[in-house]
């Protein structure tokens, strides 16, 4: 299996664990998770505020293991593999943001216009362009179609 496929499988495993933990929560606590997600998604939220929201979700869903996860993530981020992955992702997201912004400018499209064309909210576009969120492959495809360009022009994958 390729590294990319491994990465996807690991992410899906992580998602399943989160979903299972969420399903075990009461309705009140599920609402708390939704509130924290709203903070995380808000284009106005600072990194510190997003981090507070994420830590709250981790503590809610995985009591007692929050610090272990944070430590593990830090260890990974500091490893050679983690640094290489981080650098690759940064480069991809930076290229995407610059290219999409330029193409939007060329076409005199606002974030709201582009959002309407691909069926998402303006804040979602804002999050993508400011690199608060990493776009999914299907979103890259939709944006390329909406801008009338090949995907390769907005997403330079190094994998």
């Amino acid at each position, binding site marked *: 299996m390729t590294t990319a496929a491994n990465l996807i499988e690991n992410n899906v495993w992580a998602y399943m664990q989160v979903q299972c933990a969420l399903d075990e929560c009461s309705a009140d606590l599920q609402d708390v998770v939704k509130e*924290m997600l709203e903070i995380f998604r808000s284009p106005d939220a600072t990194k510190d*505020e997003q981090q507070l929201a994420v830590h709250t979700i981790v503590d809610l869903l995985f009591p007692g293991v929050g610090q272990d996860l944070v430590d593990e993530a830090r260890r990974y981020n500091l490893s050679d593999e983690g640094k290489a992955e981080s650098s690759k992702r940064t480069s991809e997201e930076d290229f995407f943001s610059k290219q999409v912004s330029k193409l939007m400018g060329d076409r005199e499209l606002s974030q709201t216009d582009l959002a309407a064309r691909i069926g998402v909210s303006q804040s979602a576009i804002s999050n993508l362009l400011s690199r608060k969120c990493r776009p999914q492959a299907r979103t890259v495809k939709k944006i390329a179609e909406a801008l009338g360009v090949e995907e390769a022009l907005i997403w330079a994958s190094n994998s």
Partner: protein
Amino acid sequence: MDWEWIRARRTERIGELRIHERIGGHRNLRIVFWVADKTLTDDPLPCIWTLSVLAKKRQDWTSPELKVFSARRKIVIARNYKLP
């Protein structure tokens, strides 16, 4: 050190303890706490829960920060107390 209730969360009995010393390079450290409502428990002594420890960066708490404090209070209640 001194403390006060967080005005926007006074009714939820959430307060902040100000630490004036610089610790680990951090200034304006705050311990945000919740004083458990006695109606929730039969404990004879008041119970104070730490909700967050952080360096305050602005004069006032922001709306997301206030929401996080309330959320953490809800989590403590759900885990440790039965609502009446």
